[in-house]
């Protein structure tokens, strides 16, 4: 751990908050990606099950 001197709180909080936002954004995107994949798979399955008219 480097010596951050009197600004330790400032620097650490900036890093913590920023990285939290980035992780949140990535997690949200990955979750939405999974959701969309599941939803499409379900609909494609239903479509393939039904005989083509």
């Amino acid at each position: 751990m480097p010596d951050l001197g009197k600004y330790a709180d400032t620097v650490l909080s900036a890093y913590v908050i920023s990285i939290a936002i980035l992780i949140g954004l990535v997690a949200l995107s990955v979750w939405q990606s999974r959701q969309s994949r599941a939803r499409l798979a379900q609909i494609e399955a239903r479509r393939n099950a039904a005989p083509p008219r």
Partner: protein
Amino acid sequence: MSIWEYANPTRFMQTSGKLLPLVSVLSFACLIVGLVWGFFFTPDDYRQGSTVKIIYLHVPSALMAINAWMMMLVASLIWLVRRHHVSALAAKAAAPVGLAMTLIALITGAIWGEPMWGTYWAWDPRLTSFLILFLFYLGYMALWAAIENPDTAADLTSILCLVGSVFALLSRYAVNFWNQGLHQGASLSLDKEENVADVFYFPLLVSIAGFVLLFLALVLLRTRSEIRLRRASALISRERLS
């Protein structure tokens, strides 16, 4: 082969599926290297002390906040002119990423301002411009969310993006003009050239590369989700018809 072939959703899904893991790994590596290098292995600035380490987050996120909007502008133009659906969806996918980048730039700027200017929020032209940009992102995303028909939503948000770009730029000049009379610009700044000596410069470059790649990876990932959802809704409306 023309570049426009990637505008076909199926082609895009194939290519982006191969590209995404590579870009993700690269961006992760660059971010780790850049931020760790910046945080642990750079000296303090003689005036700003250790707060100079915040530039490794603030500068790249501010850069991407603007570049994300530029990318949305280009994608919107491509949609309006050439009607490539993937382009419209990529613009939609980029907006939340741009919003998050703007938020990071704002928050890190405010946190840095507290010890440097003695206040979290000064109506500094740069910070104010980012606040306005933040509002533009919110409006753009709200319009996407409000309209049901996907093509109409793409059309209307593209027009909003065009008009918004002009006014965002105008706001930038307006804000500069508005604040110049009040007090001198802060003598200390987080992102002026003079602060970026070589020791700080190389880790900053790596960090910027990390943010660019992260943006790319997230936009690819989110565009893929949007394409899937779009196909799902197209299939459903067709089912309903028969």
